[in-house]
C-alpha cells in the first residue's frame, strides 16, 4: 500500500511512533523497532549522572530511526525552548516533541505555554510536534504557531486507559488541517487501531509496549493494528444504524418449510 505519511520533510511508511521510556532492558529497543516497523522514536534529555556509569540510550536506537526528543521536565515555555535547543545541539536532527507540564498528578500539558514554545521553536526551524489536551482552540493556536502536527492525549500519560477523549479527538481530526498524532494513554493495539480508523494520522505508544510482558511481540501487534486501522480508514467504513439491516435477501423464502 503506497500511503506515505509526510511530516517534517520525511516520507514515513509507518504511522506508529514509539518511545524509549520504561523498558526493563534498553537492549530490547532495536528489536522492538524492527518488530513494530516504527520509524520515529522519542527520547528525553536529562542531566548526566556524574556519580554512576549509565547506559547510553543512543547505542540502542537504530540509525534509520528519526529521533523525536521531548522537552519533558519543562514547566513553562522558556524551559521547553531551552531543552529543545540543547536537544538539537546533540546533532540528531531538528524534530522536537514539546511537552510542558506543571501538574505532577495527571501530567496534563499546559496549552498556553506549549503554544508559546511552539511559536519560538518553529521560527528557529524546528519540526515541532506539541503534546496537548484535545482542545480545539489550543489546536488552532498550535496551527497558527507553526506546529508540524498536533499530538493530543487519549488518556493521561502511562495510564493505558485508551481513547478516553474520543469525542474531542474526533473533532480535532475533523477540524484541524495538520496531522493528528494520538499520544499518551493508548494501552492496547485495538485502541491504536481505533484511533487510526477514526482518521488519526499516527499514534505514539510507549508504556503499552515497554511494560508488556513481551515488548517485542507487543510492538509487532501495535504495528499490525496501526496498519489495519489506517487501511480501514482509507477503505471508508460503512454507516452505522440502529435497526437491523439483513445481509441476506428477505424474499424468495421456501414456502411451508416448517420444523
Amino acid at each position, binding site marked *: 500500500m503506497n500511503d506515505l505519511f509526510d511530516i517534517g520533510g520525511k516520507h514515513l511508511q509507518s504511522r506508529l511512533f514509539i518511545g*524509549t*521510556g520504561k523498558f526493563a532492558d534498553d537492549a530490547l529497543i532495536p528489536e522492538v523497532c524492527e518488530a513494530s516497523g516504527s520509524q520515529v522514536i522519542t*527520547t*528525553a534529555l536529562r542531566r548526566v549522572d556524574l556519580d554512576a556509569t*549509565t547506559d547510553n540510550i543512543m547505542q540502542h536506537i537504530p540509525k534509520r530511526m528519526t529521533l523525536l526528543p521531548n522537552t*519533558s521536565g519543562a514547566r513553562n515555555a522558556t524551559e521547553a525552548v531551552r531543552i529543545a535547543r540543547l536537544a538539537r545541539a*546533540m546533532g540528531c536532527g531538528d524534530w522536537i516533541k514539546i511537552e510542558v507540564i506543571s501538574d505532577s498528578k495527571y501530567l496534563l500539558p499546559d496549552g498556553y505555554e506549549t503554544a508559546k514554545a511552539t511559536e519560538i521553536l518553529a521560527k528557529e526551524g524546528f519540526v515541532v510536534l506539541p503534546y496537548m489536551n484535545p482542545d480545539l482552540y489550543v489546536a488552532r493556536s498550535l496551527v497558527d504557531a507553526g506546529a508540524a502536527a498536533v499530538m493530543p492525549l487519549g488518556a493521561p500519560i502511562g495510564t493505558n486507559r485508551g481513547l478516553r477523549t474520543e469525542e474531542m479527538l474526533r473533532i480535532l481530526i475533523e477540524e484541524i488541517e495538520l496531522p493528528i498524532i494520538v499520544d499518551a494513554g493508548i494501552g492496547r493495539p485495538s485502541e491504536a487501531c481505533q484511533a487510526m480508523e477514526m482518521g488519526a494520522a499516527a499514534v505514539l505508544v510507549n*508504556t503499552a509496549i515497554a511494560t508488556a510482558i513481551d515488548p517485542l511481540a507487543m510492538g509487532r501487534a501495535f504495528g499490525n493494528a496501526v496498519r489495519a486501522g489506517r487501511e480501514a480508514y482509507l477503505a471508508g467504513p460503512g454507516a452505522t444504524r440502529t435497526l437491523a439491516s439483513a445481509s441476506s435477501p428477505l424474499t424468495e423464502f421456501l414456502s411451508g418449510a416448517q420444523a
Partner: protein
Amino acid sequence: MIVTINGQETTCPPLTTVLTLLLHRQLDPTTVVAENNGVIIQGEAFATTQLADGDRLELLSFVGGG
C-alpha cells in the same frame, strides 16, 4: 577554581576545558551536550571552551522517554 557541575560544586584545576573535564569523568563527548552559564556548547567547542571560577556547567545526555 570551583565550577558548579549539574548543581554540584566541584574543584577543577585551572585551564580545564569542557573536553578534559568530560574525559576525566569518563564521559563520551559524542553523547553529551553542555550548557555553560546558559550558553550551549557542543562538539568541537568542547576542546576550546575553558572553564572559569564560578561557572555553572550543565552536562546532559539523551535518556529513555516517551
